[in-house]
């Protein structure tokens, strides 16, 4: 293969600046989504040291709730209310529903184990069971065929037209997803930094036993953590529906796995880390779809995960914690 062929080959790959920016915007959008889900994993892990495998399924149920609200309000093509109100209601319902689901899961699948002081592996297996239960429940209740959001029909397609901001060409939908994520992140940061419950959460995450001795109702903090994390996952579920146009019962497992990787890459237990990890994984995935192949995007995420575990196990934002006895 001579140099000329090589150049032609890379031109085939559309190695242009515009194409790169398009992929970057797509990656940022995806990354916001993963970041929102990763926060839920990270918050729960920070407090309970538990991998909440069921979190991906909460995200999936949130996406279904958004879909049903949309259908109930007449569908994307012919909504009975203004489009802004419809989308706001979808987000509200999905966040409330997913939040409550998270609290129920904690109450019935994790708390009994905590009270029994079960071995470390028991809650993980329980979480795995909940995850499978919810997935198959969705298959039975909603069917295994994907449900179409059909968001292209919103306002006869204007939701997906692009505007130019600086060098970026960005769709309204992508802009909307990124802005919503930023707003939710700011709200969460203020909540954790300023409110009393937020302070209790930080204390519990720092040391659960000491926090309970200082008069913090740890069970309540855990419930709030699950509520917030799951509500964010519900919001991400609606966003997923808007981006990919559909929802099926298996989406939670796939996306949950990637979002969990994002939480690890960002440094598990750290909220800004989860967001940063989400963006990193989202951009990595978008580039691997754009430049390599869409079949192997999960393989690339896996490689990133292994690389991080080898080179920087505490993640981007985490600090290595020596184990105390």
């Amino acid at each position, binding site marked *: 293969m001579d140099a000329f062929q090589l150049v032609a080959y890379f031109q085939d790959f559309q190695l242009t600046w515009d194409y790169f920016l398009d992929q970057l915007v797509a990656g940022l959008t995806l990354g916001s989504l993963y970041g929102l889900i990763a926060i839920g994993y990270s918050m729960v892990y920070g407090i309970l040291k538990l991998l909440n495998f069921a979190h991906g399924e909460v995200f999936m149920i949130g996406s279904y709730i958004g879909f049903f609200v949309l259908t109930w309000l007449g569908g994307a093509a012919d909504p009975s209310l203004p489009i802004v109100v419809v989308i706001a209601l979808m987000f509200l319902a999905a966040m409330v529903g997913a939040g409550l689901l998270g609290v129920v899961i904690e109450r*019935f699948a994790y708390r009994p184990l905590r009270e029994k002081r079960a*071995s470390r592996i028991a809650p993980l297996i*329980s979480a795995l069971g909940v995850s499978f239960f919810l997935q*198959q429940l969705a298959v039975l209740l909603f069917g295994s065929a994907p449900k179409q959001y059909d968001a292209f029909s919103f306002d006869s397609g204007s939701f997906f037209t692009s505007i130019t901001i600086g060098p970026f060409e960005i769709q309204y939908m992508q802009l909307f997803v990124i802005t919503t994520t930023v707003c939710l992140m700011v709200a969460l940061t203020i909540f954790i930094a300023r409110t009393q419950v937020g302070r209790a959460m930080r204390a519990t995450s720092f040391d659960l036993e000491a926090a309970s001795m200082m008069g913090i109702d740890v069970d309540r903090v855990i419930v709030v953590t699950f509520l917030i994390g799951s509500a964010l996952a519900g919001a991400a579920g609606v966003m997923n529906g808007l981006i990919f146009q559909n929802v099926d019962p298996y989406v939670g497992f796939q996306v949950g796995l990637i979002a969990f990787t994002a939480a690890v890459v960002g440094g598990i237990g750290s909220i800004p880390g989860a967001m940063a990890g989400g963006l990193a994984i989202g951009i990595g995935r978008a580039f691997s779809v754009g430049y390599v192949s869409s079949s192997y995007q999960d393989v690339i995420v*896996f490689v990133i995960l292994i690389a991080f575990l080898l080179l920087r196990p505490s993640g981007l934002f985490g600090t290595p914690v020596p184990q105390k006895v």
Partner: protein
Amino acid sequence: MSETPPTQPEPTGPRIGADEWVARSDERAETRGGISGRVRAWYERVPKPAVFAVAVAAGALVPLLTAQTENDIYFLRVGTVALVFALLALGLNVAVGFAGLLDLGYIAYYGIGAYGYAMLSSDKFGLHWEAWLVIPLVVAVSALVGLLLALPSRRLVGDYLAIVTLFFGQIFYIIATQGYRVSFLGLNKDLGLDRANWDLTGGPNGIANVDRLGAFGLTASSERAYFYITLVAVVLVFAVLTLANRSRTGRAWRALHDDPLAAQAMSVPVNWLKLLAVGLGAAVAALAGTINAALLQGAFPDDYNTQVLIIIYAMVVLGGAGSLAGAVLGAVLVSVFMLEGLRPQTPIGDLTGNGRWVFYGAILLVLVTTIRPWRRLAAILGGIAAFGVVVHAIVAATTERGTDGLLNTAPDTFEEGGPLGWLIRQWLALPGGTYEVGSRTWFNVALVGLIALVLCMTLVKGWMRDALIIPAVWLAGFVWETRLVLEASGPTRLLLLGVILVVVMVARPQGILGRPRVEIV
């Protein structure tokens, strides 16, 4: 692996490695009265090797009780599949039960075994290596992959192992389904290679026409031969793992399981033990994979996905993590009753009725074993029957569609369903046209209601709980007959496996044959 310790005089006090309470649990069990206590006491006196020998002999007799007719081949196949799962459960027990590591990539080693065997002895690449060569090779490669995979997470908390391995399981599935168009960065043609894509795994179609197991000119071709081969493999693996569990390594695994930090402080080589546990489990899984590939004469990606992993976990957890006999028991129970018992259609005819027996039998068994005294049990059972009849009468009198719905006796036949069917139709209120797509709303409402009821049941105690059991059982029957029985081999099965995982962990974390864990603080 370490050599077995020199024989010591039987210690009289508490055993090493178990605290006193645990060590004396056998004595306390013996003091239990009643029939169950006497049976248990009698069972405790029988030496364990004798129990093992009787179990193996019973297993070996199964094929002799059947002639080689069409029906019996099906029953033999059920037995062989149960034994393959037993092998898988034994291997998973090493990582999960002995060492306390959540190895979620376990399914990939099973797949590596199957695909390895399929690639090396089939028409795929024209290689027809014999089993005595392929099996050790594939098992060794799989163990090595397990070691390499556990390597990056060795310094970290156990949870990272769970993610890395779960992801690895996914990657294996992706590679298996996408591996039919492998190319070097899309450049094969440009690099002067003979074709644009290589086909390594057969993609979604898998690899077919795999050779039967054979060595030195002998080939195992009958269903019986596979039953015995798998049985021998199970017995060997069981023996090896029993010895491993009693060895110094086994004790170190238990220490690691109970408290990794304390074990490390006692200079137990924690990292090496983790690698060893994952590697040994991977080897057993690969062995099961080779047998499965030869049994099915093919390797297909959907036999090696996450759903199968959940099935194996349910087996280990149900039997009791850490107990080898429990793993085998769990595997046989789950694979015979849940995988085969709930199957709506088999090569020898429709078996939907079996699923019905298994379902109601399991509910009855749980009620009978958990509710005491018998007066309370009788009251609840009577309440369940009465509740159904009353609801039936009310629904029949008030609704248009009535209650003359027929039962599903095969995937597409709806009949009266014999005496059991008559009872069910009098007890439940099945509206006419129960199985039409339009009736799904009722099923959805009933299923969500059932879940809510069961969750409420765990919150209340005493007579309130008893009162909730009655509508819960009725609703369970209703959702079963209206929809679950139709999907018994698909979502229903996996839904129930998920329930098993959660319920066992919440109610009895040690499983059927496991030892309860006591934490001394």
